[in-house]
């Protein structure tokens, strides 16, 4: 997640990409806030206590990424520790569409 935070600061924020962090899976809101501050996650984050968003998007583990295009459609779903380069490439594709 710190890598995504760096990518957000360097590129995604200026490119107009909305990044929403979803914290869940056996944690507390206090632990989530502490992690966000400690790692300087400057993009918005939500504490999904009951994992509602994970259920909606069929997320089975973390980290996972859901890429939504400009029309609100799911373009890519990435599960596992994918490299930031892959995330960046997919977002470049979405920006180019």
């Amino acid at each position, binding site marked *: 997640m710190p890598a995504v935070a760096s990518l957000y600061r360097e590129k995604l924020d200026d490119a107009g990409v909305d990044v929403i962090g979803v914290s869940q899976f056996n944690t507390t809101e206090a632990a989530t806030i502490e992690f966000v501050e400690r790692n300087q996650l400057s993009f918005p984050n*939500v504490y999904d206590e009951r994992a509602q968003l994970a259920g909606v998007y069929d997320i089975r583990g973390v980290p996972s990424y859901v890429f939504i295009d400009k029309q609100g459609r799911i373009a890519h779903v990435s599960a596992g520790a994918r490299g930031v380069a892959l995330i960046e490439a997919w977002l470049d594709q979405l920006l180019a569409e």
Partner: protein
Amino acid sequence: MNRATPIMITAIGKTPRQCLRRVLLSLIVLALCAAVTGCNQTPAEPRGSDYGATVEALLPTAEPTAPPTPDPTFTPIPPTDTPAPTYTPRPQPTYTPWPTPTRATTEDRQRAIPFNAQMLDGSEFSLPEAYGSPTLLAFWAPW
């Protein structure tokens, strides 16, 4: 006394070694002569007529046998000019690569379920309001 035996006279003046060599040589010559004489003799007659009868009685009585019938379990294959069977290699299993997931076209994409959520900083996020720009949902855990 001196004419006792010629051999003794002959042996006079010879060393025992020379005498022994002469005796051995004589024995070898006698043995060769006996062998040549034995080879030239005709075979001796059997000891008696009953000898052959005894041997004949010990042999099993030969019964008239039918001509050998071919073994039904074995049929000899006459040699032919057919070519030798060629070796056909066993077909190897073919590997079918796992299909590479194709990137979904924009028309095939599934619409994301819209949602509203309150951020930790108190702000509100609505996915429908974010239409027009790409959105990345990053699911994570603080560990």
